[in-house]
């Protein structure tokens, strides 16, 4: 009995520390992305996940490596949390051959079979069908996998989401729809685009629906675990609404935001509800780590990210002939 308790505790400690590290990694990754943009080293734009780390980490920590995820235009966090390596991600963001997609996808299309990542998607709501279909395949093939569909609350505007939720419930598919409500569809507050209560929508299809604090990684992870276990048991789809916030602009170039949201609002989320800071406090309180240990993690990850960036910068572009490869399998 004592052994079991100790075992559980140490499992929990491992999990919590791992989640903490992952959140720091995502934040640090995104900080570097912003830096690459500012220094004009990155082609195009990117949508930063800073502030929302607890969602990706809490959910993906409830998944096996072989489970599936689909992601969005704001996808770096999901990909990293599912196990992608920063060097190949940076390489992809810079359009390099060493990237996850040989540079062909870029920031919005990171995909990786090795970690069950079916791909980020630049069409809002565009991965709802894919995630549902992967769950369908998992069910048909009986391989016990679960599929998670990450999307922003803006995707609630897309009809296909309702079509596939209906299908998922009819077929009792092992898919979890994770809605990240960060309050904004680009530059428009979600209340201007969303009639009624969000969770009433999945509930209308009899889909199990839960609303949680997306800034608390322990809460996210606990509920994700419950819904994932349920799906794996064959009990069907679920919907997890995570309330969260993006600290930066819609994309790296969205600097002056006051016409759509106040600095004060940003400040409150950052100072009172930061998922990393608050979780760090819990780790210290519960004596799982001290400040020094946390600082160590931060430093270590900073160094790792710098190294990954350097790798990507010095990596070569694909050969121009590559442009006509991979059109057909």
């Amino acid at each position, binding site marked *: 009995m004592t052994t079991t308790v100790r075992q559980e505790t140490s499992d929990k400690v491992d999990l919590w520390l791992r989640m903490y590290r992952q959140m720091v990694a995502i934040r640090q990754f995104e900080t570097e992305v912003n830096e690459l943009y500012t220094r004009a080293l990155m082609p195009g734009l990117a949508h930063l996940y800073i502030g929302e780390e607890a969602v990706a980490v809490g959910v993906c920590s409830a998944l096996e490596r072989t489970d599936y995820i689909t992601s969005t235009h704001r996808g770096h966090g999901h990909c990293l949390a599912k196990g992608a390596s920063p060097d190949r991600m940076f390489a992809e963001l810079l359009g390099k051959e060493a990237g996850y997609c040989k540079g062909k996808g870029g920031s919005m299309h990171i995909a990786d079979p090795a970690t069950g990542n079916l791909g980020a998607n630049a069409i809002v709501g565009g991965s709802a069908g894919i995630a549902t279909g992967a769950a369908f395949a998992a069910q048909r093939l009986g391989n016990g996998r679960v599929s998670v569909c990450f999307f922003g609350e803006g995707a609630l505007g897309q009809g296909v989401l309702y079509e596939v939720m209906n299908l998922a419930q009819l077929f009792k598919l092992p898919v979890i729809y994770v809605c990240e409500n960060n309050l904004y569809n680009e530059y428009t507050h979600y209340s201007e685009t969303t009639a009624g209560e969000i969770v009433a929508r999945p509930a209308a299809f009899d889909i199990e629906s839960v609303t949680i604090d997306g800034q608390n990684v322990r809460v996210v992870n606990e509920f994700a675990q419950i819904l994932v276990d349920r799906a794996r048991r064959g009990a069907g789809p679920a919907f997890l609404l995570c309330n969260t916030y993006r600290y930066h602009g819609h994309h790296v170039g969205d600097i002056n935001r006051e016409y759509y949201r106040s600095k004060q609002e940003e400040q409150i989320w950052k100072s009172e509800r930061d998922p990393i800071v608050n979780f760090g406090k819990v780790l210290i309180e519960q004596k799982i780590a001290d400040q020094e240990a946390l600082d160590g993690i931060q430093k270590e990850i900073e160094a790792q990210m710098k190294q990954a960036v350097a790798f990507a910068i010095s990596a070569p572009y694909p050969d121009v002939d590559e442009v006509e490869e991979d059109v057909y*399998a």
Partner: protein
Amino acid sequence: MPENHLPAQNARELTFAQAIREALAEEMRRDSTVCILGEDVAEAGTPFKVLSGLLEEFGRDRVFDTPISEAGFTGLAVGAAMAGMRPVVDIMFGDFVTLTMDQMVNQAAKIYYMSGGAWKVPMVMRTTMGATRRSAAQHSQSLHAWFCHIPGLKVVLPSTPYDAKGLLKAAIRDENPVVFFEDKMMYKLKGLVPADDYTVPLGVADVKREGDDITLIATSSMVQVALGAAVLLEEVGISAEVVDPRTMWPLDEKTLIESVKKTSRAIVLDEGYERYGVTAELAAVIATGAFYDLDAPVKRMGAMHVPIPFSPPLEDATVPTEQTVFEAARALCGR
């Protein structure tokens, strides 16, 4: 002579619809990951009854009736294909592909490329085309040109039971998303089909009739129209060759161009809208490839540039017929 002019000894006469069904049944037996998704595909076997009997043989685990959610179940098929299945989705009327364009074009077509070859999408969308069924503007279109325009997709337009079966089997075995168009007026067309396993490779045109004076390049139901016109032309001493590209993409340009080089005249026939459609591409390919051999401009004949009308005399005027093709060919040959 092309393979399908020499059917194996064990060939039977089947309808186009039976050939499709046989292709599906054989592939479903061969590969347990092949499954069917669509509206009224199970008990009803589709309104065209093309799939009758598949539910009975394969059960509800392989043949899935869906809600009326073309985008939703097509999207589901994309994900299912990525994760190990080989879904065949059924879009009842080709007009409803409008609802699936995002799933097919922004997702299915691009995933292999966007992921740098990491994920593939081996799925088939079967759908219909063709007018003159008195079904009016929203149930009569032939929208295959849209898919032909999109890299990452393959597009198949069979014209005979033999081709239908062989091409559908090849499409299901293909590692890419394939859109397969069946002319709904052709389901009862009969032809010899071998009982043995065979496929018709995607990307190989077929000379359906040999001739010397003019080439009629025709797709889907227009192949029968072209063959009929060729008979009429023979009566006035014009020898017409009929070439069926069979797949719009990949496109067997070589066979088309060689035929036109030989005959020096060409009509391109397709039931899609003539403007900005398949006839334009085929005409442009030939006009370039056989530039120095053409004795007259390539003539295009597609659907009239109007929404398909319901009224029978109007609807009949919108599509090429044996007679209009015969007349156009005569004019082109100057006789």
